């Protein structure tokens, strides 16, 4: 991140009182909030269309879901070189920079929402589809009367994590530099960078307060929306395992009621995998509209695929042989950096996990603590870490330095990664405990089990799917934290935060020095390895979770 990008925005603006540009800050907060919310809205609308396409065409569904699963497991930063090449180089100008920022925020918020809508569309009860067929509803009627209302609770469930993710990436998306050129678009990320460069700490404090107020308003709005969404749009469906009188939290859309209050939309990942993906509309394949729709959507999907392959080939061909030689020679160093980064990510995840298992359990089992603690953590988690981390850095640097000496910056980078990502595994575990069948709690109490015995035999297995999904999200977000922290020039007090080596640092340095080829190659290697990791580790764990650790299967009822 290059602060200083928005200096011109921060100085001499109207509405400045005692050196604090109130008006600019307020407008910047609003611009950023509108940017994040508008992109979420765009994700929702595009998601409806794509999800409908997916339930209508098997080909499209396979391509769509495979791509989402890959992109979802790849951190936002992987898209950075693409952004630079397409938006900054090809489009250019203010529009290019604005679109680049929008695209980065979009990639941070979109996957959860698209997947949630797809899941909702796939699980519309047969009876509803029968009604639609019975009355020969067209596309718009089906969407407005059945599919869209049915997807609302799931959208509500995914809004909170999307808002958090969107705000998190503000600082890297609104202002970035390539070589000597700094690109910035108006928003609070840029504004904070500018204020930091001016050392205008009162201005930054003001920005935090205004941003805090807006975040609280957004969270309250989301809570209210999710409550209304669940009350109005939740449908009781015929699920294989239902407890009388109590909803099966993870199996009904009522999950949204819990999920929408925290950053756990990503955990829907688990839910989706164990859902039988039976398309109710397959029952009505005699409908001639389906066949035509399939062909059209299939052609569109194929065209997109061809375009992607063509662009990739064009890009590869445009790189000279000597450039390729340079990139290959750098590969061992990049992989060494990746190894170091994996160790950092694992350390962050391990600490997050330990804290989640203790604090998460404490919260989940003490209603009063939970009542106040969870909203506070929700608000903090929606606050973008990169915005306030320079102050933490400034405040604790001497203390950390006195303890860790040469490892001070390494420790601070890990702290940044931790702050950026702890919430996912925390919420994962907390929600897993909340979703545990009430009977399990009674049995643990009945047998007078101690903490470790409860954890070993009941709680950890019960929450395993949630933990895996939480850990996966934590790992993914930790990469974002490292990307920001491993090389942060002029973070505060004239200091530069950096680690001695790491892939994220190499990518950061390559980007800021204008070496786009190296940044892109590093990102490509990173994306490939993360995708393989996702397929080998995450999916296996998810499979294990769905085969063995499904707490609801322990409750048998008719």
């Amino acid at each position, binding site marked *: 991140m290059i602060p200083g990008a928005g200096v011109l925005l921060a100085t001499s603006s109207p509405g400045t009182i005692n050196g604090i540009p109130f008006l600019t800050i307020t407008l910047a907060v609003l611009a950023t909030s509108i940017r994040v919310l508008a992109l979420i809205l765009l994700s929702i609308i595009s998601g409806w269309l794509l999800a409908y396409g997916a339930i209508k065409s098997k080909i499209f569904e396979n391509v769509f879901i495979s791509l989402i699963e890959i992109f979802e497991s790849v951190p936002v930063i992987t898209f950075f070189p693409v952004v630079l090449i397409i938006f900054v180089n090809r489009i250019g100008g203010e529009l290019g920079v604005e679109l680049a920022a929008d695209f980065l925020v979009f990639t941070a918020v979109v996957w959860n929402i698209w997947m949630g809508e797809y899941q909702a569309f796939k699980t519309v009860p047969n009876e509803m589809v029968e009604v639609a067929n019975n009355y020969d509803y067209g596309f718009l009627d089906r969407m407005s009367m059945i599919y869209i209302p049915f997807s609302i609770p799931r959208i509500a469930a995914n809004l909170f994590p999307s808002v958090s993710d969107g705000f998190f990436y503000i600082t890297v998306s609104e202002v970035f530099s390539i070589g000597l050129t700094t690109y910035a678009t108006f928003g609070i990320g840029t504004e904070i960078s500018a204020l930091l460069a001016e050392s205008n700490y009162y201005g930054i404090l003001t920005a935090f307060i205004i941003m805090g107020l807006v975040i609280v308003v957004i969270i309250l709005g989301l809570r209210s929306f999710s409550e209304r969404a669940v009350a109005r749009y939740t449908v009781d469906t015929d699920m294989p395992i239902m407890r009388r009188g109590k909803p099966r939290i993870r199996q009904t859309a009522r999950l949204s009621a819990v999920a929408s209050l925290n950053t756990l939309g990503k955990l829907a990942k688990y839910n989706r995998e164990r859902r039988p993906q039976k398309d109710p509309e397959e029952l009505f394949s005699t409908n001639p509209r389906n066949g035509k729709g399939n062909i059209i959507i299939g052609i569109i999907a194929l065209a997109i695929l061809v375009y992607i392959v063509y662009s990739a080939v064009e890009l590869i061909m445009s790189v000279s042989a000597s450039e390729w030689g340079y990139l290959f020679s750098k590969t061992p160093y990049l992989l060494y950096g990746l190894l170091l980064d994996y160790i950092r990510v694992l350390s962050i995840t391990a600490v997050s996990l330990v804290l989640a298992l203790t604090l998460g359990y404490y919260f989940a089992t003490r209603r009063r603590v939970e009542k106040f603690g969870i909203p506070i953590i929700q608000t903090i988690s929606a606050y973008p870490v990169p915005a306030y981390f320079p102050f933490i850095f400034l405040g604790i640097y001497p203390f950390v330095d006195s303890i860790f000496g040469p490892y001070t910056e390494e420790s601070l980078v890990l702290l940044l990664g931790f702050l950026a990502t702890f919430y996912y595994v925390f919420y994962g575990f907390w929600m897993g405990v909340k979703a545990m*069948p009430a009977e399990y709690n009674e049995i643990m*109490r009945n047998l*007078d089990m101690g903490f470790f015995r409860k954890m070993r035999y*009941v709680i950890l297995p019960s929450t395993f799917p949630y933990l895996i999904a939480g850990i996966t999200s934590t790992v993914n977000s930790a990469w974002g934290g490292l990307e920001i922290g491993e090389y942060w020039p002029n973070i505060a007090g004239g200091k530069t935060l950096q680690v001695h080596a790491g892939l994220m640092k190499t990518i950061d340095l390559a980007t800021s020095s204008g070496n786009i080829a190296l940044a892109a190659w590093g990102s490509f290697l990173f994306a490939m390895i993360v995708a393989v990791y996702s397929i080998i580790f995450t999916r296996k764990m998810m499979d294990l979770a769905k085969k063995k650790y499904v707490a609801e299967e322990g409750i*048998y009822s008719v």
Partner: protein
Amino acid sequence: MEVVDLDFRYENGYKVFQDINLKAEKGKFVAIVGPSGVGKSTLLRLLGAFLKPEKGQVLLHGKPVLRPTPLISMVHQSIVTFPWMTAEENVALSVKTRNLPKDRVKEISSHALEMVGLQGFNDLYPKEMSGGMRQRVAVARSLAAEPKILLMDEPFAHLDELTAEGLRQDIYNILFNEDSPLETVIMVSHNLTEVIELSDTVFILNGSPATIVAKVDIDIPRPRSPRDPAFDQMLDRLYSYLTKKEVKKQ
């Protein structure tokens, strides 16, 4: 077990029970019946100390029961097993709390499974079992804790009629066999036929706030058949208690 002057209200302020008094004697199978929504399951949870009463107390051997204990074991209405554990491991869960050697835990668990007629099924996972078998595992788990009191919350409600009937026929002998330290069984049910088939004493819960409106002793010789005229008469009697608006205590 004895319940003395027990009052309870939900968090929303709704008073569920007032002046509940009942005594479950040693060696007896006790049933609590009442109309739907009267609070039968809630009362069972108060007996197990899963909930705290507003007033009054639950006594076991004259001492107040203040928190859940393996001495008072609960069998749930929804059949509860842990899907990541085999039948034997599910049962062993309640034995492990006694910190016994591994061999002994295995021995007790196997014996409990044998008692409920599941010998040879030790290594099956719950999803490989029928509903009836799962409920037997849940009963075995409760029995392996060696409770004095067994609380059963509509234990046959989620079984098909044939399976339920099979388990009903076995359950009395399973619970009160000579190996079992069990003293009393307290079952909640809305199924009057199964109540008459199994119980020695029936408490009828009714009203709002609910209280015990009648106690009925059933002395029909075992095994009991619904075709027995005495069975029918008892059915009518219980039914009348449940449908009367005001009932005097017997």
